[in-house]
């Protein structure tokens, strides 16, 4: 069997297993095992578990349980509820105000973390149930959480841009700088979308009734406390990172420690609460990580089979103008994003794409930002949309994966628009570099 057929068959097998309802973690893992066995024989099977070992000992993933623990503690104490009540009050008469504030919160989270698993889970545990409780439209609430949570890899610090910089040997400083404007454009577009939808139909993001406004928050002090505690925790994490106190990964641990202290100071701490928060952390991480495990294994096998040679021959065989080559690359990234994890996509494509980009005379920093936006799309796009899976793991009952993917479609459309804008107007990213 040649590699082109094997690739088709691989994609087909993933889709076929996916629709049977087999857990995702086992779908990609089984395909990886099957290909290893069929292509290289039983002695190569330890390759799959070696990938598992490599994946779970990745230092940057330490931030994931820390963010989940933080979220779980915030949720179980009254901190999250107070914060969202306050946000609703501050939203005043603006329809969709809490959703917009959630996007802003997500943007701050993005400046605290470089990987999205923790962020989406955090927003999924905190913001989603609260928005639903406040009567927000399910689709808008879900879209805001997933799209907003994904921004973590656009804003520095971002492990996606760091990996791009290492693979492409580009200045990480320039990549960080170039990504900021597109990240802000993405955030602003999400806000604009929510605003337009809610202004046209205020029922999608109901404002607080007047009598409730008067009833809630007896004193200014209470309001300040409701906003102040989370703000202090955000300050602790951001301060740790930008003050050079802690690494990005350690800062996540500092944050969850800060939340634990806040819960204790509020007098809400108990062993039961801690036990439940920790159990939720462990279960949620198990769910998140095991999705990645299968994908990580698959990439190792595909590389060994010569998958990267296949992708490069596909590109180099084209006789089309440069901009069309870039479009083809985007299409490949989006296609891979349908069923692979971003790290796998980066490993597979960047060693091939970046030299071509340089050869064509384009700026590799600009392409790095394009890559990051492509990954934003891949987080959301079905059927393999990690952001959707992460959210599904913590979403309230009654929210199905289908609900989530349907909610994400408009946000994917926004991302594609920003991608097109960047493609036609590179200065949007490069003007600060």
């Amino acid at each position: 069997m040649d590699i082109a057929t094997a690739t088709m068959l691989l994609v087909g097998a993933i889709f076929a297993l996916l629709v049977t309802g087999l857990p995702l973690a086992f779908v990609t893992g089984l395909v990886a095992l099957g290909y290893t066995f069929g292509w290289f024989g039983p002695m190569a099977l330890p390759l799959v578990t070696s990938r598992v070992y490599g994946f779970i000992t990745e230092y940057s993933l330490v931030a994931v349980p820390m963010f989940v623990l933080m979220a779980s503690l915030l949720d179980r104490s009254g901190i999250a509820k107070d914060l969202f009540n306050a946000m609703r009050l501050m939203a005043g008469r603006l329809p969709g105000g809490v959703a917009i504030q959630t996007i802003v919160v997500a943007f701050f989270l993005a400046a605290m973390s470089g990987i999205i698993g923790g962020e989406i889970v955090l927003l999924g545990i905190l913001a989603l149930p609260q928005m639903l409780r406040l009567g927000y439209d399910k689709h808008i609430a879900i879209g805001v959480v997933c799209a907003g949570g994904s921004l973590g890899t656009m804003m520095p610090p971002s492990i996606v841009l760091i990996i791009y910089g290492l693979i492409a040997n580009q200045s990480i400083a320039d990549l960080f700088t170039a990504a900021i404007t597109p990240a802000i454009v993405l955030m602003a577009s999400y806000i604009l979308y929510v605003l337009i939808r809610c202004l046209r139909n205020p029922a999608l993001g109901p404002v607080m009734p007047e009598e409730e406004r008067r009833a809630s928050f007896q004193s200014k002090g209470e309001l300040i406390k409701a906003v102040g505690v989370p703000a202090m925790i955000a300050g602790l994490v951001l301060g740790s990172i930008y003050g050079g106190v802690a690494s990005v990964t350690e800062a996540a641990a500092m944050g969850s420690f800060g939340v634990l202290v806040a819960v204790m100071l509020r007098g809400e701490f108990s062993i039961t609460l801690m036990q439940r928060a920790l159990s939720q952390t462990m279960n949620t991480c198990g769910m998140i990580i095991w999705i990645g495990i299968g994908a990580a294994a698959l990439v190792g096998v595909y590389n060994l089979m010569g998958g990267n040679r296949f992708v490069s021959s596909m590109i180099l065989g084209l006789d089309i103008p440069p901009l069309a080559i870039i479009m083809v690359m985007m299409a490949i990234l989006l296609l891979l994003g349908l069923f692979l994890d971003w790290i796998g996509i980066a490993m597979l494509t960047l060693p091939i794409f970046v030299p071509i980009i340089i050869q064509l005379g384009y700026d590799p920093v600009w392409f790095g930002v394009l890559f990051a936006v492509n990954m934003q799309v891949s987080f959301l796009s079905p059927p393999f949309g990690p952001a959707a899976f992460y959210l599904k793991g913590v979403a309230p009952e009654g929210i199905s994966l289908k609900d989530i993917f349907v909610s994400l479609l408009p946000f994917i459309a926004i991302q594609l628009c920003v991608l097109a804008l960047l493609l036609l107007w590179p200065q949007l990213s490069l003007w600060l570099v």
Partner: protein
Amino acid sequence: MAEHDVASPGLPEASDDHDPDLGTRTPLDRWVGKGTRAAAWIVLLAMGISVFEVVMRYGLDSPTSWVHETVIFLVATSFALGGPAALANNRHIRVRVLYDMVGERFRQWLDRFNDIMTLVFCVAMSYAAWVMFWRASHSPLGAWQLERSGTSWNPPFPAMTKGVILFALAVMTLQALWHLYQTFFPRSDSHSDVRIDEEKR
């Protein structure tokens, strides 16, 4: 489904506050659930020593030689054990497009197929993990010798992590085996006939 059917008054409970046995199918699943609740505390430990490292390094200018490796080991352990935990309470994410469209009979066949596939996955992975662990716990000459990290502190964490991976997969194999048995030989007093559909619970 109504648009706001999930928006109940008051704080919606996170799913872990329910009966911890919800979603479990066998006694083994319930034991795994108990084990998970104990093992979950290692996340707190990882957080605590991370903060300790920051204090030691930033506050006292004396970074430790052991925190980073220990944190990675503890978190990797919690990730690995998260596999059997999620299998125990049926929390692994699945796509249910086809599953929700078909009738009861076909659904039963899908259940059987999925249980078989899960078992195949677990068995093949356990075999691979066994080979990996054996190599990490024996010198090339075959004597017991744990693979170490090669750092200044040099703990045997690589071998131990690989051991934890093997343990997690072995437990998952037993879970999958028991699930398969239940699917083919359902007993009226077992949980298998009230298989919980996570969309509806």
